[in-house]
């Protein structure tokens, strides 16, 4: 037992170093693309967009120095990485408020929307995928495959727009923008109801575009396992199809499922940008988009940093879970 634990610890340590290195290099890439390339290669001065043009050159220089834009590149980079890792996300160029405070206002909304959609996607995808593979070759299976492929060709923002058009503008069942009524209801029950009412359309858009693909993935994954000996054994024992699927096959395909879910994380964040922009949801995705269009560097960098870290952490957790489930992985 101790040897097993030691192997796991060593594996976890090695993985942690790998993942941390990826975070650093991803930050370097972002720094190069967002700071070095526009300013030093293409000559676009970010301060041009938010400085009052009536200021004199000296005044502009003082403001640039306050924001640390006059320092050499390398020291800017080191400062940038250090401050990100110590949680000092700086001040927004645009609102002059701490990025951290603004982030905390928006993060709960994003987590609520995308967390719900991710959990529902996993549950619905597993259910539909497993039913499809149990009934493979039937009309249900064919319609799952067909509709998954068809829906995968729909852009997320278009699904959102169609939902808005039909249920928001035409039928007027759901609000066309925002994440809560103004002013918000005082009564907690009505508050939750109001929130759910605002969430219905964005959530549906996210689910429609993601459930099909995930169900198809689960179906195909299960299909690769059905010829395996252990499945035949389980069937020979007289287990029902349902027991075979849930007790035997699901356990064997869990590792790739977890990996794909962890890899989905960057996709979830992209989904947040689009969904929140289409539905004017008060969250991190729309904030990032607005900040980018306003050249608000600290906000853009902070949000991108948080997203990279979240992705890497989720992958790391996936690594550990897989290693716990399947000891062979640790030997690689």
């Amino acid at each position: 037992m101790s040897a097993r634990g030691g192997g796991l610890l060593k594996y976890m340590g090695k993985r942690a170093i790998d993942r941390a290195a990826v975070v650093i290099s991803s930050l370097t890439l972002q720094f190069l693309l967002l700071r070095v390339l526009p300013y030093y290669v293409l000559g676009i001065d970010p301060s041009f967009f938010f400085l009052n043009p009536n200021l004199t050159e000296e005044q502009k220089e003082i403001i640039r120095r306050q924001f640390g834009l006059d320092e050499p590149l390398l020291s800017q980079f080191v400062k940038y990485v250090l401050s990100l890792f110590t949680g000092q996300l700086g001040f927004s160029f645009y609102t002059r408020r701490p990025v951290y405070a603004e982030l905390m206002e928006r993060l709960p909304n994003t987590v609520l929307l995308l967390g719900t959609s991710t959990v529902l996607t996993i549950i619905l995808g597993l259910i539909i995928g497993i039913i499809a593979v149990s009934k493979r070759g039937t009309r249900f299976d064919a319609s799952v495959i067909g509709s998954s492929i068809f829906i995968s060709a729909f852009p997320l923002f278009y699904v959102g727009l169609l939902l808005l058009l039909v249920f928001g503008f035409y039928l007027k069942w759901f609000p066309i923008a925002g994440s809560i009524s103004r002013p918000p209801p005082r009564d907690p029950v009505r508050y939750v109801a109001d929130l759910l009412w605002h969430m219905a359309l964005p959530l549906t858009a996210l689910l429609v575009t993601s459930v099909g693909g995930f169900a198809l993935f689960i179906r195909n994954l299960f299909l690769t396992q059905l010829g395996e000996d252990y499945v035949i054994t389980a069937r020979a024992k007289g287990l029902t199809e349902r027991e075979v699927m849930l007790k035997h096959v699901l356990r064997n395909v869990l590792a790739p499922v977890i990996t794909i879910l962890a890899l989905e994380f960057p996709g979830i964040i992209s989904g947040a940008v689009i969904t929140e922009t289409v539905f004017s949801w008060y969250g991190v995705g729309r904030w990032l988009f607005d900040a980018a269009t306003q050249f608000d560097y600290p906000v853009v960098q902070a949000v991108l940093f948080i997203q990279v870290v979240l992705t890497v952490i989720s992958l790391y957790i996936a690594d550990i879970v897989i290693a716990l489930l399947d000891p062979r992985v640790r030997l690689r």
Partner: protein
Amino acid sequence: MIELKSTARSEKLTILKDFLLELKLYKTGLLGLGILIVYIFIAIFAPIIAPVDPNEPGLADSYAYPEWFSIFPEYSNLPRNVFINIGYNDWLVKDTSEDISINGDGEYTIIIAHCSDRIETRTITLEYTFTYTYDPPKRFSGRIPFRVAIYNATGSYIRIKCYIMTPKGRMYELYDSMSIAYNLSRLETPASYDARDIYLKLKLGFSPHDDLGEKILNEKGEYRLQLKVFILTVKGSGRVEVTLGVKQFRVYGRLYGVLGTDNLGCDIFSNLIYGTRVSLLVGVLASVISVSVGLVVGIIAGYKGGIVDQILMYFTDTLLFTPILPLIIAVSVFIGKSLYLEIALIALFSWMGFARNTRAYVMSIRDSMYVESAKAIGASDMYIIFRHILPQLTPIIYITLVMRVPGAILLEATLSFLNLGDPSVPSWGRMLYSARYAGAFFRFMWWWIIPPGLAITFLALAFVLLGHALDEILNPKLRVRR
């Protein structure tokens, strides 16, 4: 199909034939190919299918309905475009002072008044009659190109006014040049009036919220456009010359084209047709670039192994874990909006998965016996890569080339929808952007909102279906499983 590099041409043709025969077995693949051919046809013949320039504004009133709406009774009498050009031959000289000469020079009307021995005022009235039978429009506008030349008669004045007279005899002054006492040419930049002009509305005694078209052109019958030129000449021997260009008068229709117009009065159908080009270009180009990059990185990493492999894979992982869309948004905002930058960014962030697959594949080939023996007889790395490794990769290259296209198309549409695309290029994503932010939803203009999205979907779907069929045909592993 794997043996594509065979040299004999006829052999290649039979392979292609076999491939098409095989494709016939996969009906969905054939469907995808069919849709794709339709799109390519539309992209090539876009100028013939939609002759109107997609970026030209003011083709009709903003938010015009599609022309075929006229089959419904409530839309049947909505205003159509009435664009009138009035040249020298079209004017009817209503009345004129005797000592004025009027000549035509092509379409131009040249009015000459000679000075006499006293100060004299003269008037000339030109008239044009047109019939208007539709419902009142929201907007009309006009242009009056003219030139005033005063020869040796300093102190003379010219004044040009434009009126419209309704069938019932109401008269409105649309334009007044005020007194001009100097040489002035407005042939290139004509004087103009527009029913949306608030000063014009106020001058005619209407509220700024009224639509002048509805107030003035609300009778059916013969309208008269009048152009009055007032000339005051001083004593002397000089002369005054007024040249009138082709006067334009436009009533902007509220029924236009196949799919109406957008908020700027651009043709929506034209935008839809031309959008095909951008989507195909971005999809195919981004896919080719990303597959090429992935192939090179994958082959080098897989074949060389060791430290090269580790560095390349580290770089690949970095890109793989970076949130793509947010980063592309930030980069394209900071650097600028251009079609080729967009393609480069899409390609830059989509080659990683293919590089990883290729690497795994190359590694397994590299360790095989025949590569070992090729090395033993002294084959170079290049020879092995081109002779032994690449031919085996051909099927996955083809499959990936096709499978990558829908992703690139959807990403391009998304970027354009976020208004990060090239603003000079018509694209489906940008159409949806303008529909969203110019009020198409409030007006429930489904003919503006639904077609571009369906166009994106079916183009992406064509590539997905084709990709799946290719996958089944070219990928022997899958075929066994069937």
